[in-house]
């Protein structure tokens, strides 16, 4: 089982109503339906992923965050709003975060850390935009148009008065390593944040 699923699962109370932004092939929602008896929806735009969600019995809505936004969802209509590995690919991550906190009591966000030491080294030594297993694209065709670091994300949360309840830093295989705990912004590849409104 993917380690990130295991970590996220711990933060979801049984029977929660969940929205997953960019739900992919529905693996996470399906897992949560099984393990936590959750209800809710995934939003996705990739046709093959949408079909796979239907195959899994995951309720999926074809909706584009960038062009359609989330205004069709009511305030406080979900217990948790999830967004795994999609924050860096949306046109306005800050607005999406605002919307997540409008719709849900809690938000869970995962994204790749652009300050990971290998990426820093890549840029420093070659002077070219870093590529890695997590970030395999070229600078001109990457869907990841808003890469940020853990520090950037935390600064944004602070600015917006969102509270970071938990943060788990993992490597490319979503494993929690002691080394990445030591110096997350340098040694962590992916972070899983659990955030709430500050008030």
């Amino acid at each position: 089982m993917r380690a990130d699923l295991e970590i996220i699962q711990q933060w979801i109370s049984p029977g929660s109503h969940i929205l997953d932004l960019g739900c992919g092939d529905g693996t996470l929602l399906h897992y949560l339906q099984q393990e936590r008896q959750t209800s809710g929806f995934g939003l996705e735009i990739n046709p093959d992923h949408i079909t796979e969600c239907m195959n899994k019995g995951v309720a999926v809505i074809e909706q584009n965050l960038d062009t359609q936004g989330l205004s069709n969802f009511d305030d406080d209509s979900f217990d948790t709003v999830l967004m795994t590995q999609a924050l860096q690919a949306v046109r306005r991550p800050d607005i999406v975060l605002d919307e997540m906190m409008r719709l849900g009591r809690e938000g869970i966000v995962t994204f790749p850390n652009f300050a990971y030491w290998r990426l820093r080294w890549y840029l420093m030594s070659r002077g070219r935009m870093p590529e890695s297993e997590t970030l395999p694209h070229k600078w001109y065709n990457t869907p990841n148009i808003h890469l940020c670091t853990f520090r950037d994300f935390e600064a944004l949360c602070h600015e917006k008065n969102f509270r970071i309840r938990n943060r788990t830093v993992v490597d490319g295989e979503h494993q929690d390593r002691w080394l990445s705990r030591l110096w997350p912004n340098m040694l962590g590849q992916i972070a899983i944040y659990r955030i709430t409104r500050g008030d």
Partner: protein
Amino acid sequence: MPDSLPSDSVGLVTPQTLHFDEPLQLACGQVLKSWDLVVETYGTLNQDHTNAVLICHALSGHHHAAGYHSPGDRKPGWWDACIGPGKPIDTNRFFVVSINNLGGCHGSTGPNTVNPETGELYGPDFPVVTVQDWVNSQAVLADRLGIGCWAAVVGGSLGGMQALQWSISHPDRLKHAVVIASTPRLTAQNIAFNEVARRAITSDSDFHGGRYYEHNTLPRRGLMLARMVGHITYLSDASMGEKFGRELREQAYQFGYDAEFQVESYLRYQGERFSETFDANTYLLMTRALDYFDPAYETDNDLVKVMARARCEFLVLSFSSDWRFTPARSEELVNAMIAARRKVSYAEIDAPWGHDAFLIPTPRYNAVFSTYMARVAREVGA
């Protein structure tokens, strides 16, 4: 029919007429004391009666949805692309029931059938029936067939409205509703097109207030015009452009008003053929049923409140070029389902054919529809 039956065809099928003596209370206040429904079925009902799927037809549809009536048939049923062995509605797994609705003109009780109380054809005296009335009659049919709960109720356009109405009116009698290229209510523009169609029919001098049978005639010109304007709304600018463009029948302009462009000739041909085979009173009735459909009407236009009554899961599909019932109308429905916390999946299929796209198989439509129905089949043990 092709020389040999394709392996994914349900083959030769025979419609049957079921007679009902259960009085049917209609929304207009009248009661149908006895009535007939013409039905076709494909596939086999399983032992537990859990694998039944109801197909609801659109404006000019009927019970003949799949297969052929005779080896001489030129074309199969109207939704043969989606019903058959290995097709999205897989007859190897499902028992499929397809009917002609009340008020139709293909054998079920309607304007062109005999009113048992007078011994004459109903004609314009046939009551205006609604989507709700149809669904209630379909529930009586389900009782007759021993189907307590449909695995799915499926329909496109006006058929999708019936699937939606099922989920609201009989929430415990279906597991899934598949609502394709449909809408929770008609817009003013939709009603306006229907009104043009109706006026074309009723202003035809051969209409005789709907009693044209007695005058041994048909309001052909009116029905033809109605069909022509309707047909335009089923296609898209792009698909008409691709099919006809500005192509002329002759080499040059004739400087007259006959059908000079191919598109004119096509519309006239389709309209004329339709006017010989479809009943004008049924056309009036079907368009009115479309106009009246508005399940949120009784809850002060609160669609969320209405959808909260549903218990089934939903698949909603729209088509990118459909301007009759646009993707936005499907999304309106989906949003109400989301707010009511109903389990719904939604996809907008990219297809150039306008509203008619729901009848035309494309790879993505096929994939989504097949995948969803395969899961339904697994769930109900089909």
